């Protein structure tokens, strides 16, 4: 089987939820292929920006989509936000991988138990499709330059230098631009509440 669709084809929130539902209902591999085709190349962009090398990226992409396959039945099909769900799975696996690497290199010295809970961060199960749509709408109403500043700073491994380079602005003004853009986004989110 090949991943259906080109990876450029957009996938809207309802369609994505329908695919997750098909996996949950009858292990639909075509549905899995479509999710993979859309999300895997984007997860690779995300992980690369977080500083992961090629083989870590491949492992984490596989593990993320295997988790989607296995946990589709636990996903809230009525109101869950698929992109946010997949993003948080991948993010948490990435955090977990970095922690294990550090812990393994330090464990002899510290003799700590291996079972400290990883920080759960925010529980993505609580984030609904409606909330995700609200964020999408707010981001869509920002001036293009502010939306770009946010996109670059959110995922960047070395955010400020990267933004300065991409936008051709001095490093010193990056911080205030990011602050301004996020503050504006927050105002819009408040307006849509």
């Amino acid at each position: 089987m090949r991943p259906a669709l080109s990876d450029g084809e957009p996938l809207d929130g309802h369609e994505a939820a329908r695919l997750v539902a098909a996996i949950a209902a009858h292990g639909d591999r075509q549905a899995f292929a479509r999710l993979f085709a859309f999300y895997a190349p984007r997860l690779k962009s995300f992980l690369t920006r977080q500083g992961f090398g090629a083989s870590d990226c491949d492992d984490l992409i596989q593990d993320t989509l295997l988790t989607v396959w296995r946990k589709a039945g636990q996903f809230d099909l009525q109101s869950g936000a698929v992109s946010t769900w997949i993003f948080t799975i991948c993010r948490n696996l990435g955090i977990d991988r970095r922690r294990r690497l550090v812990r393994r290199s330090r464990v002899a010295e510290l003799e700590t138990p291996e079972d400290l809970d990883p920080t759960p961060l925010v529980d993505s199960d609580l984030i609904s499709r409606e909330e995700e749509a609200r964020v999408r709408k707010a981001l869509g109403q920002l001036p293009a330059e502010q939306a770009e500043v946010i996109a670059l700073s959110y995922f960047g491994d070395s955010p400020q230098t990267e933004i300065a380079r991409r936008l051709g602005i001095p490093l010193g003004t990056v911080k205030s631009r990011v602050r301004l853009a996020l503050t504006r986004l927050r105002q819009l989110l408040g307006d849509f509440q």
Partner: protein
Amino acid sequence: MTVKHHPTPELLARFAAGSLSPAAALVVESHLSMCDTCEGEARDMTALGGVLLERLAPADLDARLFERTLARLDEPRPASASAGRARRTTPDLGIDLPAPIAGRVNSGWRWMGPGMAFTRLDVPEDERTSLVLLRIAAGRRMPTHGHSGAELTLVLQGAFTDEHGRFAKGDLAEEDGDSHHTPVVIGTETCVCLAAIEGRLRPHSLIGRLVSPFIGL
């Protein structure tokens, strides 16, 4: 409890993106457990990650990654992780700790000067940032100092003031350098703070100056 000093939007975004060091993430998470407003904003910042993921330019994948993933769909599922070993009993520090750090206490208070004590929390997965609890008696003035390292400080009990204002229970102080402090504990209650200190402890940083001789950095 009225929290007045919140994380900046950038800090919440980095937290939601998974980019913070483990120790710093624990401080932010502890703040979220004390502040509903920021808990909601952290959820928005997490949803932002999902929305931005959709918009990322797709990267080239190894042509065989899909087949390799497909081949693993029928693997037996890993047994769900057990609830974990029973936690060893931890020293009682005499205060209520936020849930995110409750299991991280390793040792009791250690004296570090008149009216001052600290304990270093267990964050073995973080090699860059130290996480400490600091306890300072009412009325005690910390030495004036410059500040050159990133530090996140969350007040768990009591209050202090410095040039930036009054910091009480739930307030988060975010330092990224260039600032000068003369923090003084105010009120009648002993002040307890949770602090993540990045990098090697610098002699001039707020908490670093106080605890570095004790934790060997």
